[in-house]
C-alpha cells in the first residue's frame, strides 16, 4: 500500500476579486521508502503541494476538494491539534532556509530534545542521547559539544544538517523537503543531498523532494513529477522523464538547462512565461507556449495518460487525437 496518496487535490485562495485555483486536481502516490521529486518553475505549485500535505497552508489558502491519505488514513480534514501531532511524528519537514527553521534563542540540543520528547515517550537523558546520535548521523563533528551550541554558531551547511536531524527526530515515515539545498553552495549541496539520501534510506523514510534543480532530482529521486501552472504535467521514473520526456513542457524544460557535456551556441528557450493564476488558458495551460499545439489543446483539458514509460497530461499521447496531431 502507498504511504501517501494524494487524490484530486484542489487548493484555492479566495480573494476579493474571485477565487484563485492554485492547485488544480493533483493526484500522485509515494511508496514507503521512495524518493519522489517534484520539479517546476516558480509559481507552478510545488511548495503549495508540500504545504498542503504537512497541513501548513497559509490562510486564506484552503483545500477545496480532494483527499490526502497517509497510510490509508485521511489527514486533510484533521483539526489543528491532531495535525500538530502528525507533523513531526509521522511527517517531517525540511525547509529552504535553515536559519529560519531553527529557533535562534534555544540551543540545537534543546530543540532536538523537545521534538523527541513531544512525540516519543522517552526520558530526558534518553532524548539527549538520541539527539547526539542524530547529530552524529547527519555528520556533525564533535556532536557532544555542538549539541549545546546555538544556531548562529553553525554555518549554513551545518545548520541544514541540524534541520535534517530535527526532521528525523521522531522517526517519521515521510519527509517533505522543500528546496533543502537551494540556499547552499554547490559543494555543500552535494554533501547535503548525499546525506539526505543515505540517512532516509537508513531510517526507512520516504521523501518528497521539492526543488527547481533538475540535476538534484536526477541524482536523488526514484520518480519525478513535473508541475506546470498548478497541475502535474508529467510523472514517471526519473531517468525516463529526463531522457525521454513525453510532455512538450518537460522537453522544453530539459533543453533549456545548460548542459556540462554539450556545447551549444544557443540554449533552447520556451518563449513566453507561465500564466498567472487568474489567467490560466482554456484547455491545456501550456498551449500558448507549446510548439506542438493543435486544436484539441485549446478546448479540452488533458488529464494524465500513459505516454511510453511515463504518464503525461498531453493530448499528443491520446489515441483519438493522434491522427489530428500529425
Amino acid at each position: 500500500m502507498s504511504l501517501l496518496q494524494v487524490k484530486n487535490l484542489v487548493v484555492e485562495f479566495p480573494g476579493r476579486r474571485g477565487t484563485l485555483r492554485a492547485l488544480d486536481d493533483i493526484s500522485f502516490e509515494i511508496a514507503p521508502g521512495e524518493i519522489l521529486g517534484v520539479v517546476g518553475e516558480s509559481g507552478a505549485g510545488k511548495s503549495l503541494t508540500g504545504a498542503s500535505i504537512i497541513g501548513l497552508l497559509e490562510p486564506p489558502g484552503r483545500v477545496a476538494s480532494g483527499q490526502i491519505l497517509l497510510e490509508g488514513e485521511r489527514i486533510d480534514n484533521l483539526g489543528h491539534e491532531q495535525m500538530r501531532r502528525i507533523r513531526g511524528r509521522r511527517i517531517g519537514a525540511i525547509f529552504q532556509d535553515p536559519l529560519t527553521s531553527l529557533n535562534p534563542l534555544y540551543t540545537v540540543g534543546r530543540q532536538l530534545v523537545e521534538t523527541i520528547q513531544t512525540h516519543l515517550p522517552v526520558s530526558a537523558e534518553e532524548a539527549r542521547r538520541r539527539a547526539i546520535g542524530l547529530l552524529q548521523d547527519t555528520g556533525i563533528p564533535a556532536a557532544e559539544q555542538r549539541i549545546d551550541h546555538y544556531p548562529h554558531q553553525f554555518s549554513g551547511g551545518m545548520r541544514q544538517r541540524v534541520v535534517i536531524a530535527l526532521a528525523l527526530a521522531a522517526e517519521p515515515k515521510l519527509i517533505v523537503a522543500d528546496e533543502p539545498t537551494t540556499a547552499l553552495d554547490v559543494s555543500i549541496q552535494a554533501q547535503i543531498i548525499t546525506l539526505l539520501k543515505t540517512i532516509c534510506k537508513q531510517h526507512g523514510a520516504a521523501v518528497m523532494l521539492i526543488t527547481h534543480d533538475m540535476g538534484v532530482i536526477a541524482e536523488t529521486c526514484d520518480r519525478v513529477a513535473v508541475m506546470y501552472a498548478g497541475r502535474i504535467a508529467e510523472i514517471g521514473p526519473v531517468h525516463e522523464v529526463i531522457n525521454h520526456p513525453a510532455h512538450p513542457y518537460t522537453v522544453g524544460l530539459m533543453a533549456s538547462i545548460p548542459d556540462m557535456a554539450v556545447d551549444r551556441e544557443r540554449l533552447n528557450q520556451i518563449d513566453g512565461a507561465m500564466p498567472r493564476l487568474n489567467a490560466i488558458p482554456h484547455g491545456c495551460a501550456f498551449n500558448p507556449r507549446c510548439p506542438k499545439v493543435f486544436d484539441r489543446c485549446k478546448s479540452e483539458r488533458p488529464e494524465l495518460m500513459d505516454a511510453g514509460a511515463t504518464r503525461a497530461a498531453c493530448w499528443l499521447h491520446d489515441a483519438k487525437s493522434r491522427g489530428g496531431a500529425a
Partner: protein
Amino acid sequence: MSALVQAHDLAKTFDVSPPWLNRVLEGKPRQLLQAVDGVSFEIEKGKTLALVGESGCGKSTVARLLVGLYEPTRGGLNFDGQDAHAAFKVPEGRKLRRRIQMIFQDPYASLNPRWIVEDIIGEPLKEHGLITDKAALKARVGELLKSVGLSPLDMVKYPHQFSGGQRQRISIARALATEPEFLVCDEPTSALDVSVQAQVLNIMKDLQRERGLTYLFISHNLAVVRHVSDQVGVMYLGRLVELADKQTLFANPRHPYTRMLLDAIPEMHNTGRARTPVQGEVPNPLNPPSGCSFHPRCPYANERCKSERPQLLSIAGAKIACHAVEEGRI
C-alpha cells in the same frame, strides 16, 4: 593589441572591527577582512571572462571594484589603456563610467518600484546628458526595449507589472542605454527559473555578437559559465586559483578546488551515480588558513601547502596556483 580590460593585483580590504567603544572597553583588536587579495586578469574586446566560486569568495567584490563602486586597497584597473580608478575621481571620469555598466543579480531590488520603465531606462541617458529632447528619449527607450525583446509599449508600466525574466531584461536595457563597451554582470540569471534563464542568456549572447560587447560574467553555476564564457577564473577566498580558456578548464581541470567544484555538480543523464562529496566548508575569511587557503579541504595537501602560499603560475596553457600541480604531484 592589448586587452580592453586589464585588472592587475586588485585587492580590497574591509574594516570589520567592532565599534571604537567596544575596542577600548573590551580590548578587542581591529579586524580586517581581505575580501579580494591580488586578483589579476585581462579580457580581450568582445570576449567573456567568467568568475566562479562559492559564496564569500570575493567575486561580487571584484565586480564592484571594476565598475568603481569600491575603491581598491591595492592594484587597479586599466580600461582601454587608461587607469580607470584615477579617471573615476575626476569630472571627466563620467565618460569612462558611460563605457562600463553593470547588471545586478536581483531584478526585484535593482529597479526602482516607483518609477515607470521609461524613467528607469532613460535615467542613465539623462544623467550623462546624452539625450535631452523628450521625444528623442522616448524613441531611444523604445529602441532599447525592442533590443531586449520587450515592446516599446511597455515603457509606461511599473516594474511590478513584469515577471522576473522581463525585469532582468529591463536591467539589461538600462545597462545598454549609454552604449557601453564593457558589461559587468553579477549573477544575472541566478534569481531566474531555468527556462527564463535560457531566454536571458540567449539575449546576452545575441547582444554581444551584435555590439561587440565585453563581459565579465559572475556566477556560481558552472554549467551556465560553460555556456557563456571564453575564459574562466575560479576564485577561492579572495584569490584566483585557476584561470584558463573554457575548453582547457572544463576538459582538463587542474586545481583540486576546480575539480571539486566540477565534481559537485549533479549530473542529469547519469542518474544514480554515487559521488564522493568533498568534505569541509569554506573557511572563515576573517581567519584564513595559512599557506594555501584550500589546504584544509585538499586531498593533496602536504607540509609546503600549509606554510607557503602558492602563486598563480603558467602551467601547460593555464594559470594555476597550486604547489601540487607545480610539483607534478597531480
